């Protein structure tokens, strides 16, 4: 009776490939769950677009002079205390249109693609989550010097997403 049939070894019983595979699946599931939870972005694009619009309106409205705004050395960035690199960059867009009885003047900055995205959303009446979020406002302004009434239309957009370093 030398040839005794060996029992399965304890190590083999517990450390089978299946056991390691199950551990690995549990680990991957937990890591994926945590990463998914942490990757959720807080969408403040609509608020930013509205803030940009409000800022442009408030600084233009404050001491409105058509002559000043249309002058060659006028800078909307300095006038409204905007960072040119950001407001004229890839994440934002703005278009200011001043009009009054035959006169029309426009200033725009930022990513011109958002103009198309804003136009599409405005026409369809739907908010597209993958598009830039837009604000469209229109008010009447009185020129402080000439007392002429102008129509101010402002379209702004933001498509900013945060960064992790």
């Amino acid at each position, binding site marked *: 009776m030398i040839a005794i049939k060996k029992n399965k070894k304890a*190590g083999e019983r517990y*450390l089978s490939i299946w056991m390691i595979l199950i551990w690995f699946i549990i680990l991957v599931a937990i890591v994926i769950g*945590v990463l998914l939870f*942490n990757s959720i972005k807080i969408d403040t694009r609509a*608020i930013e677009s509205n803030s940009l619009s409000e800022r442009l309106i408030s600084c233009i409205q404050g001491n409105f002079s058509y002559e000043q705004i249309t002058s060659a050395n006028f800078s909307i960035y300095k006038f409204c205390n905007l*960072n*040119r690199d950001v407001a004229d960059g890839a994440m934002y867009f703005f278009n200011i249109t001043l009009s009054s009885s035959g006169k029309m003047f426009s200033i725009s900055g930022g990513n011109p693609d958002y103009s198309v995205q804003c136009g599409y959303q405005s026409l369809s009446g739907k908010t597209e989550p993958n598009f830039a979020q837009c604000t469209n406002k229109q008010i009447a302004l009185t020129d402080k010097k000439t007392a002429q009434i102008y129509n101010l239309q402002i379209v702004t957009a933001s498509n900013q997403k945060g960064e992790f370093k």
Partner: protein
Amino acid sequence: MIRLKNKKADALDLMAGTAIFLILNLAFFIMLMFFVSKAGTGADITEQIYSQKIAVLADSLRPGAEITLDISELMEMAKDNNYNGDIISIDKANSTIIVAVGKTGSHSYRSFLDFNRVSITLDKNNKTFSMMEQS
């Protein structure tokens, strides 16, 4: 005699196997608990929330107005993580608000406001962060 020898060897194998099994189990669960506890602090989400909150508040600033934000939560987290660096820093050239509560990373968010005309105060005693745009 041969049967006895085999029994001894089997017992040793069983002990070694069980020991390896227990060590590997322990290592796996320690690693898992470490990862989950680190992720569970919510530092990542908090950094993201505060960087966006400050950027949105900066966007809505008006000349002459001052905005103060309670940052006690950030300071507590930084203390828990033994982090002594800048919790909130602003890159004025790019108008970027950077929030960090640990050494491992940070979150940043941009504002369209020009911070060269904004005075910033971080009051560590009152745990507040203030911004005021010059008129």
